[in-house]
């Protein structure tokens, strides 16, 4: 019968025992009988639904354990789950990349972290926990941005699985794997393909997809599937607020730069409770002016930090689906998901599985040069607007260069302040004034891709 008389005493004993256990677990990387029984069925036995390439063997397990190298991008809600799932599926050589540190609000789902870990790098703590809990597993952490690595790093992995919270990062990863593809006489060399498994979650919704770069739909092929980020029109924020959110955005975007409440040059730090408190109070004042109700601290914080609600369960489901696909591909045990699954458990449990199609003129994977059609009198600003606003391109801060009179000339670049200032006047010049010719190639760089995208400029009359 459960000991309900002295729960506190028992709990303390449990905590002590557990701490000892977590530390000891890592010392021996030894095997024990039956460890991989649950997986062996799928590696050693023939079956009616296996992949055509599948050959049952006792060596497949060794491949997973000793040779297969997996890269996990992100050590957050999905990343923690992925690391656990992969480690318990026989994968031992796992690298994990994450540029973030641990926050208290992560603890409701990122179960490899504890209160004492707040402030430490996610990748490091996650790797330590898994290596300690799963003997023999060797997770290598990288407290870095994905952009800090080049092709030589990514090329070493058999499969890459993403648990990111940013579309920009996904697109960059997508672009990186596309850049690794090798074509010989126009034919894709299959050994240059690194499969990308991508998972995403938001509240009770999630999706998992399998991408074979160069063969199946890539991230950019289905860019329109991603819902646009909510940005309220400036006139609403500035003079016609109707919702509590409008009031908070007013304070964040207009009032803060004007009043500089914490000093000159001190930007709004969304993680500083004092800053949020100030925004909250000012938002209440703004709302009162317009008889708008509903401002709470929680709402304020949510708007400023662009918080997306999150729970453990959705992350568990999506990461599990992704990890199952990694296992299928690494072992050839089954035909992988083809190629997109959507999940939603707001009302019962709903999934929809379909094959996302490649876009014929995808700016990332089609290798078809992208066309730009503008009148020679159009201003460069119009080209910039097109690159950012077009639904299939959705660039963030494109840098445009062109070869003029044999020299490589930067027409406009935003990301370096001095260059931005120097090239800003070009935005109001017409394409003809800038010396661009019909059929000219423009090279565009952007955070959404590691490679430059080539465009062909065609003049309309």
């Amino acid at each position, binding site marked *: *019968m*459960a000991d*309900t008389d002295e*729960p506190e005493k028992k*709990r303390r004993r*449990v*905590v002590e*025992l*557990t*701490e000892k*256990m977590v530390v000891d*677990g890592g010392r021996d990387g030894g095997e*024990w*009988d*039956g*460890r991989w029984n*649950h997986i062996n*069925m799928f590696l050693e*036995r023939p*079956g*009616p*639904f296996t992949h055509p390439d599948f050959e049952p063997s006792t060596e497949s397990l060794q491949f997973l354990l000793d040779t297969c190298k997996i890269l996990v991008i992100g050590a957050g809600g999905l990343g923690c789950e992925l690391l*656990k*799932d992969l480690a*318990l*599926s026989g994968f031992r050589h796992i690298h994990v990349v994450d540029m973030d540190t641990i926050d*208290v*609000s992560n*603890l*409701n*789902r990122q*179960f490899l972290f504890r209160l004492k870990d707040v402030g430490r790098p996610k990748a490091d703590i996650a790797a330590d926990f898994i290596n300690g809990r799963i*003997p023999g597993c060797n997770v290598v952490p990288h407290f870095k941005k994905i952009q800090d690595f080049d092709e030589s790093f990514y090329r070493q992995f058999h499969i890459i699985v993403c648990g990111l919270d940013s579309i920009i990062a996904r697109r960059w990863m997508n672009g990186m794997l596309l850049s690794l593809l090798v074509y010989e006489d126009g034919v894709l060399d299959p050994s240059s393909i690194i499969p990308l498994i991508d998972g995403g979650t938001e509240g*009770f919704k999630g999706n998992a997809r399998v991408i074979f770069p160069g063969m199946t739909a890539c991230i950019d092929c289905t860019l329109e599937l991603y819902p646009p980020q909510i940005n309220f029109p400036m006139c609403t924020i500035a003079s*016609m*607020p*109707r919702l509590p959110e409008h009031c908070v955005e007013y304070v964040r975007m207009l009032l803060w730069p004007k009043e500089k409440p914490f000093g000159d040059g001190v930007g709004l730090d969304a993680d500083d409770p004092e800053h949020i408190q100030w925004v909250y109070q000012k938002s209440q004042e703004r709302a009162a002016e317009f008889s708008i109700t509903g401002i709470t601290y*929680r709402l304020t914080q*949510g708007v400023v930090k662009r918080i*997306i*609600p*999150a*729970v*453990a*369960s*959705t992350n*568990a*489901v999506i*990461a*599990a*689906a992704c*990890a*199952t696909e990694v*296992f299928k591909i690494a072992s050839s045990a089954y035909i992988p998901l083809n190629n997109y699954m959507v999940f939603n*458990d*707001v*009302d019962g*449990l709903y*999934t929809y*599985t379909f094959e996302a199609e490649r876009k014929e003129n995808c700016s990332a994977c089609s290798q078809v040069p992208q066309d730009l059609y503008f009148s020679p009198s159009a201003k460069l600003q119009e080209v910039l607007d097109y690159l950012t606003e077009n639904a299939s391109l959705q660039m963030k801060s494109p840098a445009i260069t062109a070869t003029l009179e044999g020299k490589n000339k930067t027409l406009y670049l935003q990301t370096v302040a001095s260059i931005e200032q120097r090239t800003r006047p070009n935005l109001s010049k017409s394409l003809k004034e800038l010396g661009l010719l019909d059929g000219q190639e423009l090279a565009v760089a952007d955070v959404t891709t590691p490679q430059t995208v080539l465009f062909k400029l065609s003049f309309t009359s």
Partner: protein
Amino acid sequence: MAATKASKEQKYDRQLRLWGDHGQEELENAHVCLINSTASGTELLKNLVLPGIGSFTIVDGHKVSGEDVGNNFFLSNHSIGRNRAQAATELLQELNTDVSGNFVEESYKVTSSIKTFSCRVNNFWFYFHSTCLRLGSVLWNANVPFLVCRTYGLVGYMRLVVKEHTVIESHPDNALEDLRLDQPFAELKSHIQSYDLEGMGKKDHGHTPWIIIVAKYLEKWFSEHNSQLPKNYKEKEAFKQLIRQGILKNEKGTPEDEENFEEAIKNVNTALNPTKVISSGVDDIFNGEQCNDITSQTPAFWLMTRAVREFVQNDGSGNLPVRGSIPDMIADSEKFINLQNVYREKAMQDASVVSKHVEALLQSVGKVCGPYSCILRCCSLSSACSMDSADGEMVLYLMLRSVDRFYQQHSRYPGVYNYQVEEDISKLKLCVNSLLQEYSLNVNVKDDYIHEFCRYGAAEPHTVASFLGGSAAQEAIKIITRQFVPFNNTFIYNAMSQTTATFQL
């Protein structure tokens, strides 16, 4: 004390935005019980411990085996030979100090110990990894929700068994707005009348809410069409044209850029939906037994429902209370807020009428009534199931029942050892056929599935268990918090094709 409350708010912030402080309170007052700490079970518990469930108890008499450690994150190889319930409790407990974990080192038996458990705590749940009819009936009678889960090879399975579960806050994803444009209530009518579209200045014209615009033009349409709503595509297009003609034009005669008018045109199709007279689902609830026989024991849900029914029949002229919310739209602040308040005040008025009905029904309830209610009635485990076709996931369900039958006959599952796989295929086939016969199911189960289920050897791969654990935990949270709609009542996950299906059996 205040510090712990604040840090709990921080820790749980991301989930509080989904089910609110009241939902979290329900979760923290709940006590769940897991029978058999298999990987599916511990993964499920993990997803309850992390969000802060009050407490859990694991009942398991098994000793930890090497195989168990291989697929379970909450068992370590150092615990091989120890009791499994205890070992798993320790590592689950460690996830969250807010939660209290307990264990019982016994194999589950239907003994008096279950009754004693029920007396000690309320809100008891059982998760089981293989079916048990007797336990099911004990819990059914006690109205304790029972969730059966298992992972078998690449198949996940969940069955919800609860007599009745009522939900008020279902948070529907895509509910239609409740604008009452076809039958505006008095306050809305007079508010609409306060606008003079023809007489107002340019700025006001371009910042009038689209709801007002549609209402005004609807008045025009009514006068020309015998008070009939535009019914078909042709009429709706004509109505949209009517609105379009109302867009201000500049001196040259070109229409101005009036986004609010564009919004009005865009929303015509949905805005003109007749105010939904009671749907069949709500009708069922209104005609339910508990709704008719109100006693001093009647739970809050049924009191409220009856009060709403009284409202519909007496004060609402056949309509439910007004919802009170409107979507955001292009408008200046004052016009929008004023319009929003018209709807809000009417909603509060209606709610207080409902409240008076409740008082009149002998109890008072303080909640504002939401129209998003639903009931789940599930079948008890032993009720016969009827299936006509055997597509994808249904075949998997039949196979799961068949392997249980195999277990009953042979005291083991098919294909556990390599040498058994071949010979078990024909034995399993016999089980499948006897199952189909017993339930008079004229269904063809392909040999491939029988082979595949022998191949599984009752393995429980971690990733499939984790998927199921995540799905099941969220369903449990829905039942505990009484928010969002749980599945009803049988769920199958096919990891081979990454597809799922829900059946009501």
